[in-house]
Structure formats: structure tokens, C-alpha cells
């Protein structure tokens, strides 16, 4: 297979990943969505379609407001509660549990977070296509990460496409949960145990 064929296959693969979101977004929001997907955000049209599909009118408003697809992350997270699923073996979990703090991270190893709230560990694992089942969910104010929150590229940052909603690893779950990355330090408001319901509040 030649390089051109491989490129064609890659484009087709990425196109198919976003096909359903494009169809649903345009079916629901018509020409407005079509212009955002195919004209304004052409190269990132798949990501734009997922933003409309997942966030509805808010997604449309955000896409109209910004000029770069990554800038949508800031607008979507602003003034929202953000969630991070972890388990006891996640790096620095004990600091998170004791002090309610997630340390800043180097740029190439960001912290993954979501705007979607799920209360069940199996659903979280499936929606976010996590390789391990979470046991706790941390909640925090999204305004803390506005300076650097962004949309991750798929396949743990190695793919060419922006992955607004988890979908790269269907063998790990249904996907469809929202995801963002940040390197900012985070102060947690609440830590909730998904098995026992225990809640740890932080000031």
C-alpha cells in the first residue's frame, strides 16, 4: 500500500469516527450546524460536530464565539463543575484524598477530566473508555483550569484528530463521555467513593 492510500485510509477512518455526530448535529440544528462543521471548523469539523451533538445549543453558541477548536474547551468548562475519575492506585491518590489537591503536571502528561457526571463506576469506565475501573470521583470548579484546558487528541494524544468525546478504544467501553486535558494544579471540592457513597468535602 502506497503513502497516498494510507493517507486516504486514515482520512476515511477519521471521517467514519465522526459521521454519526455530523448527521445528528445537522439533523437537529440544520444549516447553522452545517456551516460550523463544514465551513468555519472544516479541518476540525468532526470535533465541532461532536460539540454540537453533545452540548446542544451551548455547543452552537461556543463554536460561534471562538475561532479555534481548542478555544471551545475554555468556554465549555467556564463556570462549570468538572469531574475526574480515579482509583486508589492513581499517582498521588493519597495526596488527593488527604488534601484535596491534584498537582500540576508536565505538558506531555496532562490530567484528563470530564464535564459529565456519572455516579456508577461501570458506567464511568464505559463512557470514558477507561482501562481501569474507577473507585472515586473528584469534583472541582472548572474555572481553575481555564488558562490551559484543551481538547485532547485521540489515542492518548498520539492521533491526528481531536477527541471531544471518548471513542478511540471501543474494546474498553461504549464511549461518548466528554473529555478535556489540563496541566494546571487543581483544588478539589468533593471526593466521592463510587462503592460506598462516602463523601469527603474540602474547603
Amino acid at each position, binding site marked *: 500500500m502506497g503513502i497516498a492510500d494510507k493517507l486516504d485510509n486514515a482520512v476515511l477512518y477519521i471521517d467514519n469516527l465522526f459521521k454519526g455526530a455530523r448527521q445528528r448535529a445537522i439533523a437537529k440544528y440544520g444549516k447553522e450546524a452545517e456551516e460550523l462543521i463544514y465551513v468555519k471548523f472544516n479541518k476540525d469539523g468532526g470535533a465541532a460536530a461532536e460539540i454540537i451533538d453533545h452540548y446542544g445549543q451551548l455547543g452552537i453558541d461556543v463554536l460561534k464565539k471562538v475561532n479555534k477548536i481548542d478555544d471551545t474547551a475554555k468556554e465549555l468548562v467556564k463556570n462549570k463543575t468538572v469531574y475526574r475519575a480515579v*482509583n486508589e*492506585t*492513581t*499517582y498521588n491518590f493519597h495526596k488527593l484524598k488527604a488534601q484535596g489537591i491534584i498537582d500540576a*503536571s*508536565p505538558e*506531555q*502528561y496532562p*490530567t*484528563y477530566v470530564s464535564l459529565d457526571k456519572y455516579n456508577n463506576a461501570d458506567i464511568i469506565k464505559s463512557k470514558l473508555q*477507561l*482501562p*481501569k475501573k474507577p473507585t472515586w470521583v473528584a469534583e472541582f470548579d472548572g474555572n481553575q483550569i481555564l488558562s490551559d484546558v484543551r481538547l485532547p487528541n485521540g489515542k*492518548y*494524544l*498520539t492521533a491526528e484528530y481531536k477527541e471531544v468525546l471518548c471513542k478511540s478504544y471501543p474494546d474498553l467501553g461504549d464511549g461518548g463521555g466528554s473529555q478535556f486535558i489540563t496541566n494546571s494544579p487543581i483544588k478539589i471540592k468533593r471526593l466521592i467513593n463510587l462503592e460506598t457513597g462516602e463523601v469527603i468535602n474540602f474547603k
Partner: protein
Amino acid sequence: MNKNKILSDFKNKLELFYRNFGSDWEIKDFSKNDNIQIMLRDYLIILEKKGVIKFLDDNKFRIIDLPSNHLDI
């Protein structure tokens, strides 16, 4: 893909996974390819000597320190 690139990607993934998903893994979580699994196992032996991971059995291992804390790997 050459060996250095495979091992570099693996090291990066170890840190990303530890920071986001947890410490305990199996070699097959990182590749389904038998030849690459052998390569990763050899590399993990080096990482164990450096104190980055410890083997739990032939295939399972625990990350015990961030790879980025070790500039010599």
C-alpha cells in the same frame, strides 16, 4: 516503527497511565504483538532495576515511580 520509538512511546504511556488510570498493568495492555511484548518485557527489567516498576509476576507489573523522575532511562 523502530525499537527506540516503541520504547519511548511505551515510557510515555506508562507515565500517562500512572497519572490518570492507576499503577498496576499487564504487558498485554500495551501491545498485542508477541515480538513487541518481548521487547517491552526486556525494557521493564531495566525499569525495575531503576526503581520505576516492580514485577508482580511474569506479565503483571506495578509502576512505583514516575518515569520522568529518571533521566537515565
